[in-house]
């Protein structure tokens, strides 16, 4: 190992050395060695070993052909069901997220006024009612006959 490393590092003429006639003769001799052949029994044994593997591959491929479209359809169906039956939540006051103090005050005031209206009816608590009442009081409570009697 050390010898071959030294050779490859130190010898820049390795390519030239490999093409000398002696080296080429050896290479030709190796190339000319008789080919070894396998027997028919060997081949038949190989076929026996390959047959179950090939059958398994075919089975896997068939299952794949069935499985892939089925899985795709199932996924598409599940997606469609999920989209169709998704119920959007109705917006209510309680569900409104209150993020700032002004909004919170507005909502609280509205809720209070609603509760007060439910309990007392259109009364003092209702600003509109107060305004109506005030408006009625400011209306003149006399007629023109009263003026003529003076």
């Amino acid at each position: 190992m050390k010898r071959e490393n030294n050779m490859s590092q130190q010898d820049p003429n390795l390519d030239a050395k490999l093409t000398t006639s002696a080296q080429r003769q050896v290479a030709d001799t190796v190339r000319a060695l008789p080919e070894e052949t396998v027997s028919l029994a060997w081949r038949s044994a190989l076929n026996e070993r390959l047959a179950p593997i090939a059958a398994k591959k075919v089975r896997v491929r068939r299952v794949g052909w069935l499985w892939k479209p089925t899985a795709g359809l199932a996924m598409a169906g599940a997606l469609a069901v999920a989209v169709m039956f998704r119920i959007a939540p109705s917006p209510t006051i309680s569900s409104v997220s209150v993020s700032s103090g002004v909004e919170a005050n507005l909502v609280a005031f509205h809720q209070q006024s609603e509760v007060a209206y439910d309990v007392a009816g259109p009364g003092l608590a209702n600003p509109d009612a107060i305004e109506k009442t005030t408006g009625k009081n400011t209306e003149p409570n006399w007629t023109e006959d009263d003026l003529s009697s003076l």
Partner: protein
Amino acid sequence: MGVTGLSVARTTDPAAEAALIDRCRQQDPVAFGKFVDAYQNRVFGFVRRMVPNVEEAADITQEVFIRAYQSFNRFDGRSSVRTWLFRIAYNLCVDRSRKVDRSPSETSLQMGGDDGEETMDVADSRWEPEKVALDDELAGVVERGIESMSEKLRSVLLLHDREDLPYEDIAKMLSVPVGTVKSRLFLARAHLQQVLSAYLNPEAI
């Protein structure tokens, strides 16, 4: 000689081979059968020389093709299919030698040509018997010379000189620099040259 597989593998039309590989990627058993036909002898020859036991070599070669079949859909085509296949074969041989926990360099010379004879093809009858005998003998010497090398030298020699794989592919396969591949190849050939010289000129020693 048993060159059928070799000639099929080396002379296949590139377009036809690409089509065959595409079908193999889709795990077509018929196409894979043709692929095995094309490469079985070459892979077996490589494994047989890396692993001294013939039966074990035959078993490992089967494992190579089973692994290739199982992982063909992951073959990305960045390297040639031949390089890819021999990488599987090389890795399995290395795994095997690790399991055995015995360095292949310790392989004794007694595991020579005798084991391989039963799988050798019958020689062409047109050849002269003396020539055949000489060739067989010489081939036996070369085989024993290859077996007596360390695994590192042997794998490089076989992958380059026997299987015609380029230096870069071998370097990637073995995870070493190209320079190391070249130096290993040089040393392997030099070793074999010594073995052949000793056989051809016994008086010179």
